[in-house]
């Protein structure tokens, strides 16, 4: 088993992935890091970004928003609030949402709702930035 890394991706709603892979690149808050089999135990928080899953059939890319990664003797576990294969991400949907949220920010009556709308907007913006970078 030492030549493979057991990788699990979990969202609050369900277990998205549980498989053995060669390597996973994780977008940690303090920088991306690759996890190979027999990696030292680590707990790290994640920033919004791309997880790269490397195995024989190639590289699979998934977008994650918020969460953390844990590496232990059993393998790598990523807990993410949102996780989606890059190929399934619908850019136009995010653009539409961004527009909605921009309007929310404009319409916000008090500081509290404004702050909340801005936070949501920034999240969408960072997702879009990542998509741009991947497309380039």
């Amino acid at each position: 088993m030492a030549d493979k890394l057991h990788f699990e991706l979990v969202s609050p709603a369900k277990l998205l992935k549980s498989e053995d892979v060669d390597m996973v690149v994780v977008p940690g808050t303090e920088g991306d890091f690759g996890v190979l089999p027999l990696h030292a135990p680590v707990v790290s928080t994640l920033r919004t970004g791309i997880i790269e899953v490397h195995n024989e059939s190639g590289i699979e890319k998934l977008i994650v928003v918020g969460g953390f990664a844990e590496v232990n003797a059993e393998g790598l576990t990523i807990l993410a609030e949102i996780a989606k294969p890059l190929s399934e991400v619908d850019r136009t949907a995010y653009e539409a949402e961004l527009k909605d949220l921009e309007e929310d920010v404009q319409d916000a009556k008090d500081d509290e709702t404004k702050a909340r709308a801005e936070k949501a907007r920034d999240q969408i913006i960072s997702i879009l930035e990542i998509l741009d970078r991947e497309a380039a």
Partner: protein
Amino acid sequence: MANLKDLRNRIASVTSTQKITKAMKMVSASKLKRAQEAAESARPYAERMENVLSSLASSMKGQSGGPKLLAGTGNDQKQLVIVATSERGLCGGFNTNIVKAAKAKIKALINDGKDVTIITIGKKGAGVLKREYSDRMVEHFDLTHVKRLQFSDAAPISARLIEKFEAGDFDVCTLFFAKFINVLTQKVTPLQLIPASFDAENSVDLGGACYDYEPDENEILEELLPRNVGVQLFRALLENAASEQGSRMTAMDSATRNAGDMIDSLRTTYNRSRQAVITNELIEIISGAEAL
């Protein structure tokens, strides 16, 4: 003796009631299956989260000045009770049981001289609590529009809780919900959300291995603890949804059976009185003929 027409009407009305309860039972059986699946698929996330947090928490133990969400405010004067019930009725003792347990707790806290505030999720519990504690109820979350509970439904509630906690509105927060054990049994469970409580048994033995923390432990805890509140809440709501459907299914099942019994006894009475009427008529005809 009730007349035949009345009896016929009653039989018809009980039969249609039975049809309704039977349909409701069927519907909740299929909803229950879905709710159960959802509750099960949410389990890995919550469990992993708990494992990581409890091992972090145990490594932090003994150090002073940990995050407030874990260590508490060092006070328990201001208590917040969250009561999660269903949005719809006709589900047996489901709501009553939750409210009863919550009320007992609230009463005990008030007797201890604590300041108690209440947040309700689901309008069935809110209605009952309003009668007694309307001045203590600070907020209500409505999930009527939610067909299938998603994490994004629970997130705003937990965000609001953390906001209130940081504003110093409460020190301890307890959530009342019904844990799904099986279709027949649901157990009302109090769950302390803030400060977070962990079972020492659940903490994974790291086998002497030392984790690297990136960024440091404190920052990870700061980030994970609020998220954990959301996850726990989400999980509790999922369990609650499954319990509600289970409870409704049993309630509707026994209602269907009761209606069946009632129809049987009504039908017997109906047949008897029909018989009696015929006999009466015959007697009248015969005695009339004899009199001639």
